[in-house]
């Protein structure tokens, strides 16, 4: 069988206009990867905090460092967005919000809510 003529590729990410539902979806994927990358660090901190008095204090010390607090912002967002977008997908699986209009609204809501929750948690932790 003859090879087909190569399809045109249009992968300039700055020119592709993703609908809001697409934004929620790709961010769900991105946040998932970020959370995945946090697994070793979370196990390290868990082990450290449970190793004894010194380990517990050392773990608390890590959380007080400014660079850690800053890194925790995208991590908090990742968990919030991944959870909220995931719940949105679960609802869509149950046929709740499958019309285009409702899907757009729920995607918008999820995107905004994840940022708000992150801002709230970050603010609360700094107090």
């Amino acid at each position, binding site marked *: 069988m003859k090879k087909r003529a190569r399809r045109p590729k249009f992968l300039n990410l700055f020119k592709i206009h993703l609908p809001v539902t697409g934004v929620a979806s790709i961010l769900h*994927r991105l946040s*998932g*990867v970020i*959370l*995945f990358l946090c*697994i*070793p660090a979370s*196990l390290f901190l*868990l*082990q450290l*905090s*449970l190793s*004894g*008095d010194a*380990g*517990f*204090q050392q773990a608390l010390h890590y959380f007080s460092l400014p660079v850690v607090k800053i890194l925790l912002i995208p991590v908090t967002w990742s*968990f919030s967005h991944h*959870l909220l977008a*995931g*719940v949105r997908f*679960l609802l869509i*699986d149950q046929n709740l919000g499958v019309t285009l209009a409702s899907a757009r609204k729920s995607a918008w809501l999820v995107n905004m809510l994840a940022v708000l929750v992150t801002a709230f948690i970050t603010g609360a932790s700094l107090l």
Partner: protein
Amino acid sequence: MSFRALGLRTWLIQRLSAVYIALYMAVILLWLLSHLPASYSQWSGMFSHPVMLIATAIFYSAVFVHAWVGIRDILIDYINPTGIRFGLLTLLALFLMVMSMWVLFIVIGLVKL
């Protein structure tokens, strides 16, 4: 053609692990907000409870299963050369197995029979 409905099974596993993860996180976060451990003995005391140890072991199992399905989907979508994709999937499996052993060591270290 798959008559064993592997796609459906994977889809279901992804959902079930997600629900458990969400429930565990909600319970832990609510518990911590009301009983913030101020010392090592409080923290390890709370963690050493058998229910907590078992729930946590299952939690990490759920995370690793959920992560396997998710990252595997990403590799399938974006890595076209079969050899590289196979290699990365193998590395992923190895990584998750190592993480599982790590969790096992942490949990066993706290078990008091």
